[in-house]
């Protein structure tokens, strides 16, 4: 079912995060990701004062409520004291700033006169410093927009910031991060909330991604670009959905978020009509462990054996609501379980709408209801754990249930692979930025002078020139653009006489299909492509042989295309000999059919020479030799 988004007042803004292809933002380390184990780990804690937490920053507050150890994996060769927060940052990477200003100008945004680096407090451990360094580089105005099928989308801000550390794993007590990713320059491009249709969001993200790539100075590949989506509907609340990596998922995430907010608003109506009030949700936490002493539930038995206890609260008026679906496969109870995990550090909760179940019996449910003084229409929540985590868990669950009476809470949510989202943390306040005094501001005048007038072409102009100049189809031209190989295509297609559509498809579809087969196409160099173009133009390499040749290069079987050809090419004399052999082998058939045997001969010859010589040459030669053969006999 498609909603009437206009009527719902859907508002979507995008925040696109794109890693730049330059060294790190505040040191000279390369922006390389590592796959090997870090060489060593360092252990840190982050502190923040209690008084500053209260009013200013619920996000930071909640993180610091947990005294966590953070372990940072370092690499002696590609990370340095700066990432480890053992040395002040170097000056802002001007190359990265230049790329950012280029992007700003391509989008007709206004670079600021002087860029000031700020510290944005982040105490989840993803930055060794406890803050992320970020700078506002350009702002949008009414001229800075992109045109989509659903209307224009204006740009709001363009920031240059440092990428966070890569999280390896985490528990409530500790989190491990790797420092290879920390400090990679990242642009954050935010749009105004002009998007009003889920598919428009996808189109805008695609267009903006292409503009970023047109600079030729952004990183490519998985994880190098990601979208945060801000979504709200009339009467609902703004949600910040983090970390969407697939464009195709964007519309689905928005649709499901709309569904979730509508469901939460319905739940609110229902609770109010049931007469539920906030005070009644604040029911006491009760230790109900004794009711489960002879439980046959495996989960319960195992936990009690380990010394855990079972605690419960009454959920006044929530019967039937805890189990209500708010997104496909996600229930209101799942939302509560998110809070339990995040704030209480427990694996989850059990609620009345899903019990009996998990081995918990009807009788146990009845006695729990009684112990928690549940009446008709009430449900309950159980959590298994120690006193401290149970209290944190159930208090956070109560807070969330209370909010159900108000409507949709502002949250930062995580995108899930199926298009749903889960709660990550409360929406951070805005008062958590202060100047990075270790980095001097940068005047943009010189860079502006250098960059303006030398801006890269916009994607749509590049594509239309590929179509008009090289006769590519528009689809192939976009694919070529998205593959990032426009430059090499243009250079080789201009230099050599080659069939350009075929060559474009080599650079796009062939590489894609080789990659799908698991062949490491990244080993193929631009030199190899140039060889392919040259030998194709000289007729020394058959079109049919290109896949095998490039696969051989990628896997290291051949060191060059030339080497491949040496092993695979045929001289015309050798070809004639093979044709002659086929002719004599098939002489009976030829006698019967005359030139009608051409296909058969051709088939016989191609079996032997495929990929070693251009098919059109073979065909011509077979025709000639066959004619001669018929005349002779």
């Amino acid at each position, binding site marked *: 079912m498609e909603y009437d988004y206009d009527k719902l007042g859907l508002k979507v803004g995008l925040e696109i995060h794109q890693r730049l292809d330059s060294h790190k933002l505040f040191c000279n380390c390369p922006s390389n990701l590592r796959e090997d184990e870090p060489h060593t780990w360092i252990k840190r804690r982050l502190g923040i004062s209690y008084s500053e937490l209260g009013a200013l920053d619920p996000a930071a507050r909640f993180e610091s409520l947990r005294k966590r150890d953070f372990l940072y994996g370092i690499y002696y060769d590609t990370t340095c004291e700066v990432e480890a927060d053992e040395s002040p940052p170097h000056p802002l990477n001007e190359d990265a700033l230049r790329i950012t200003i280029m992007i700003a100008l391509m989008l007709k945004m206004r670079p600021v006169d002087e860029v000031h680096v700020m510290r944005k407090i982040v105490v989840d451990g993803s930055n060794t410093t*406890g803050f992320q360094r970020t700078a506002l580089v350009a702002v949008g105005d009414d001229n800075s927009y992109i045109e989509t099928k659903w209307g224009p989308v204006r740009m709001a801000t363009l920031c240059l910031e440092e990428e966070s550390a890569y999280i390896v794993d985490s528990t409530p007590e500790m989190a491990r991060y790797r420092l290879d990713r920390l400090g990679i320059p990242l642009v954050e491009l935010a749009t105004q909330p002009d998007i009003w249709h889920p598919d428009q969001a996808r189109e805008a993200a695609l267009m903006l991604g292409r503009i970023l790539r047109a600079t030729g100075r952004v990183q490519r590949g998985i994880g190098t670009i990601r979208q945060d989506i801000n979504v709200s509907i009339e009467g609902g609340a703004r949600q910040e959905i983090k970390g969407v990596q697939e464009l195709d998922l964007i519309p689905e995430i928005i649709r499901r978020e709309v569904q979730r907010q509508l469901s939460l608003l319905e739940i609110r109506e229902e609770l109010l009509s049931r007469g539920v009030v906030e005070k009644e949700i604040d029911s006491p936490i009760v230790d109900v462990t004794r009711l489960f002493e002879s439980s046959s539930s495996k989960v319960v038995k195992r936990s009690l054996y380990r010394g855990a206890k079972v605690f419960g609260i009454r959920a006044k008026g929530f019967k039937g609501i805890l189990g209500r679906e708010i997104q496909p496969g996600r229930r209101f109870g799942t939302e509560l379980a998110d809070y339990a995990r995040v704030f209480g550090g427990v694996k989850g909760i059990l609620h009345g709408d899903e019990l009996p179940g998990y081995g918990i019996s009807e009788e146990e449910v009845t006695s729990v209801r009684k112990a928690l003084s549940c009446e008709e229409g009430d449900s309950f929540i159980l959590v298994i754990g120690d006193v401290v985590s149970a209290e944190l868990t159930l208090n956070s669950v109560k807070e969330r249930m209370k909010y159900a009476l108000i409507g949709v809470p502002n949250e930062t949510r995580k995108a899930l692979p199926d298009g749903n989202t889960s709660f990550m943390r409360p929406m951070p306040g805005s008062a958590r930025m202060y100047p990075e005094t270790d980095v001097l501001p940068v005047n943009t005048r010189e860079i502006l002078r250098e960059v303006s007038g030398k801006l890269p072409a916009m994607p749509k102009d590049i594509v239309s020139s590929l179509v008009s100049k090289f006769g590519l189809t528009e689809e192939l031209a976009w694919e070529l653009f998205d593959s990032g190989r426009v430059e090499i295509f243009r250079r080789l297609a201009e230099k050599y006489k080659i069939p350009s559509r075929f060559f474009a498809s080599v650079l796009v579809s062939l590489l894609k299909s080789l990659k799908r087969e698991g062949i490491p196409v990244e080993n193929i160099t631009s030199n190899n492509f140039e060889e392919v173009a040259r030998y194709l133009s000289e007729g020394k390499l058959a079109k049919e042989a290109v896949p095998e040749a490039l696969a051989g290069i990628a896997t290291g079987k051949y060191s060059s295309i030339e080497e491949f050809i040496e092993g695979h090419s045929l001289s015309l004399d050798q070809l004639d000999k093979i044709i002659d052999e086929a002719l004599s082998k098939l002489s009976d058939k030829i006698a019967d059919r005359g030139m009608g045997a051409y296909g058969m001969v051709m088939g016989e010859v191609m079996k032997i020479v495929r990929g070693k010589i251009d098919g059109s040459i073979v065909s011509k030669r077979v025709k000639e030799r066959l004619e001669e053969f018929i005349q002779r006999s």
Partner: protein
Amino acid sequence: MPLHYYGKVKKLLESLGIEDYDRVRIEKDGRYYEGILMPRPEILDDEHIIVKLDNGYNIGIHIDGAKVHLVRKGESIKHRELPELRFRSDLPYVPLIVTGGTITSRVDYSTGAVVSHEKPEELLDIVPELADIANIDYVPLLAEFSENLTPDHWAMMARTIQRELEKGAEGVLIAHGTDTMHFTAAALAFMLRDLDKPVVLAGSQRSIDRPSTDAVLNLIAAAKIAAVGPIAESVIVMHGSPHDDYAYAIRGVRARKLHTSRRDAFQSVNEPPLAKITRDKIEILNNRFRRRREGRSEAKLDDAFDSRVSLLYTWPGITEEILESIAEKSNGIVIAGTGLGHTPRWLIPVIKRIIEEGKPVVITSQCLFGRVDLKVYETGRRLLMAGVIPGEDMLPEVALVKLMYALGHAKDLSDVRKIMRTNIAGELGSHLGLDVFPPCWGVRHGV
């Protein structure tokens, strides 16, 4: 509110009655920017205005073609709710003498301004753990970066410490900038005689306004050593590694800042650190120290120092004139020589002359680690014959401070020599085990 601008911008802002933290609206090229006017660091030009926009970002706007309007006057920095300070009769009294450095300042996030703490409550707000270690009170003394401190400041500190000990402190904490913390630590070791309680210096390499500050652990560890530690000496307590899990207590006369920025910049030279302090316990690593004594302190102040002493780091090609001109303005010289304690041969006659004039010359080594030995090579022997005082295993900076002390107590060269050659505060004659040099630290710490 004052106005932190100069030149052109200052003129403009003053004419509009605008001061720091006022809300301003700037029109430029048909676009509006509204936010809070931020103070401008002096190192920057006088052509830009810094505005904190409502999204939290600061930007600099060039004033050419900009129309600036005052929207409304700024509000003063709000005072925060602070945790209440409660006296606990079960905990010792430990004063915190504040001399400067970043360890007792904080950032106001709404403006970005760095403000100094005025009350111990503010420190407890950041390091609440301190409340369970000792009853801490602030003794504001100075507000100086440590590079600006002088021997007079050392004497002020020593006097304050002695007074606090007399008042019944169980130990004294000193918040200090890190640059010259080891000079101060050494000076206090010589100025406080018969010390019977810990005197603990602590600082931070990452300022306390950031969540990753090292000050939290340093202060917890330092307060523990001051409150209940057994070491009745002047010590420096700082991070022992890049980890946030332990700090070292290093004897003041053995401490050296060996890195510009790392948390574990302070290292113990020529002897192991005295103790390793974690959040749970104090582990003694080196038993050779003065013990704490119970009861009221009987420490005495002995601050007779002659600060006209120089420290010269020699180099290949250093000329006689340089040494001569330094000697002219000094009552004594410490030379940080090369290797075992050598100087170029042509300096030796000058050194001889200086000593003959009655000015002591002490030889230490740029190597920092190890002991000087002037008997091994010809140059060393000639230096000995010229009458230099070998600094043994003393750090050059410690020899400098000690020579100030010695000249404050003796004028006669042979008496000065006697003092310099006598161990007073653990600065001389350590046991140079094979575990005291950096490549072997891993073995020692089991890292």
